[in-house]
């Protein structure tokens, strides 16, 4: 067993170390836009925070959010706590529907399966219902219930913020 441990260490220590979050954000943007647009800022006014509260059940812990916009497509980098630690997620929204969800930083010790494209692809095409829920069913991952719920909240939030930017006011 000790040999197995050492062998595993040798095999897996050599690949690149985790890239930092800014690099992950840059990667996400370059995958989302052919030419990443300039950073824009959405100030989280009382009106916007009130709408956010109806999705997250708490205010977003920031005064403003940076986002990127090109035509009808916006991209957001958002954070929400899964079980103990915040998950950083990049979400692009096109015409009010989720286009792509990408986990930029996952800090929980369990539930890494949420990072898999097979899981995140479930969000693609999802829109907000009038009740601010997703119109898609998201199948969970055993042992990662809280992380799955956090990601679902963030997908709803990204669409809500997209609609806010597009309409000029919170829904």
């Amino acid at each position, binding site marked *: 067993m000790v040999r197995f441990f050492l062998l*595993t260490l040798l095999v897996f220590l050599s690949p690149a170390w985790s890239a930092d979050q800014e690099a992950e954000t840059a990667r996400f943007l370059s995958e989302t836009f052919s030419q990443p647009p300039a950073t824009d800022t959405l100030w989280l006014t009382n009106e916007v925070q009130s709408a956010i509260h109806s999705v997250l059940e708490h205010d977003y812990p920031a005064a403003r959010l940076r986002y990127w916009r090109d035509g009808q497509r916006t991209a957001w980098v958002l954070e929400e706590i899964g079980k103990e630690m915040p998950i950083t997620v990049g979400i692009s929204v096109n015409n009010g529907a989720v286009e792509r969800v990408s986990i930029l930083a996952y800090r929980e010790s369990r539930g890494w399966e949420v990072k898999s494209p097979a899981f995140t692809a479930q969000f693609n095409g999802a829109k907000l219902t009038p009740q601010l829920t997703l119109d898609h069913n998201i199948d969970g991952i055993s042992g990662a219930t809280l992380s799955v719920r956090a990601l679902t909240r963030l997908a709803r939030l990204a669409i809500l913020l997209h609609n806010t930017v597009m309409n000029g006011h919170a829904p």
Partner: protein
Amino acid sequence: MSKQLNLVAYKAIAVFLLTCFAAPAWADASMEDRLKAMEQRLDSLEQENLTLKRQLQTTDQKVEVTGEQIDKIATQGVPSKAAWAEKTQFGGYGEMSLNQLHNGGPSGNVNQIDFTRFVLFTGHEFNDQLSFRSELEVEHAHLEGNKGELEVEQAYLNYNFNDRLSGRAGIILVPVGILNETHEPPTFYGVDRNPVETNIIPTTWFESGAGLTTHLGSGFTVDSTVTTGFKADAADNYGVREARQEQFQGTLARNPAYTARLKWAGIPGVELASTVQYQADITQGLDATAGGAILLETHAVLNRGPFALKALYANWNLKGSGPASVGANKQNGWYVEPAYKFSEQWGVFARYNRWDNQAGDVIDSRFSQSNLGVNYWPHPDVVVKFDVQNQKSPAGQDAFNGFNVGLGYQF
């Protein structure tokens, strides 16, 4: 008189003509002045504009800095505790149960209410790679004599080597079964944890040691641990639940337990996993009639829309004449649990469990239990549970039949 008048008229005409011819020269001078004035005014406006631009730039920078400060305060509370608070998280869960169970066996009826578990967990992120996780648990609300327990169920340092490999060391959960690592009450059906993962796995199973988690891609994950092992006792018929050392002072570390789990979760809502554990001596050298043990466990979790199905099988093989003499050389069990969620708030389930901690002989020692019940989630993190249970047991043994009501939460 007329000459004088004429002279005056001539003079007037001359003055008029002079005035007329002289006017453009005055106009040119005035225009030049005005142009100069306008030029000066433009210069002044240009300067003013530049100043305003610089001021706007400065204001933007101030707003940016103010925003950053507000963000920090929003995420960290007050600046004085910023670095610590930003990287430290608290959470917890708990459950309370009411059991109304009739029993014709030796232990008699169970009519009790119990705050079964009160758990607080703390996590701290030292940096992107290194973090700490812990769970502190109070069982049965009150500690006195042998009633109630206060235990550190998890306390370990976790290190992410990269996106595919992480390692941990400390008091860790053994990677086995469905409930052992994830047992927050809102995540499972039934007031009490199922008897197979209580008596055969045995949940909650924590040991001191170290482990690695390796993500192989395509949904495959391998968990491997080296931890403290059992200290089984003939007085407990070598039962695996009683054999856990629970990390009291003086926990023996002569013969470790080696555990490996292969898990596949390549399709959302699906988990297939198998665990094998080997221990060279489950009595830590204290019982010459007992020896090594191997655990094999496998389970499946399937979620598709409102439907869910869980199934688990676990089997122990214990070496030595001691365990064999009481049939404890084989200890095994299985359960299957279909469930259906009507809405986000309501779900129903049925579960059939069968287990035997002395399956190695011909003496009947097999238990079975059927449960039927409902979960109500007024909030995704809060659950109210109800189930009825029916147990079948060997002759002369306890068989608890009746109903259970439970409350649970996590945050």
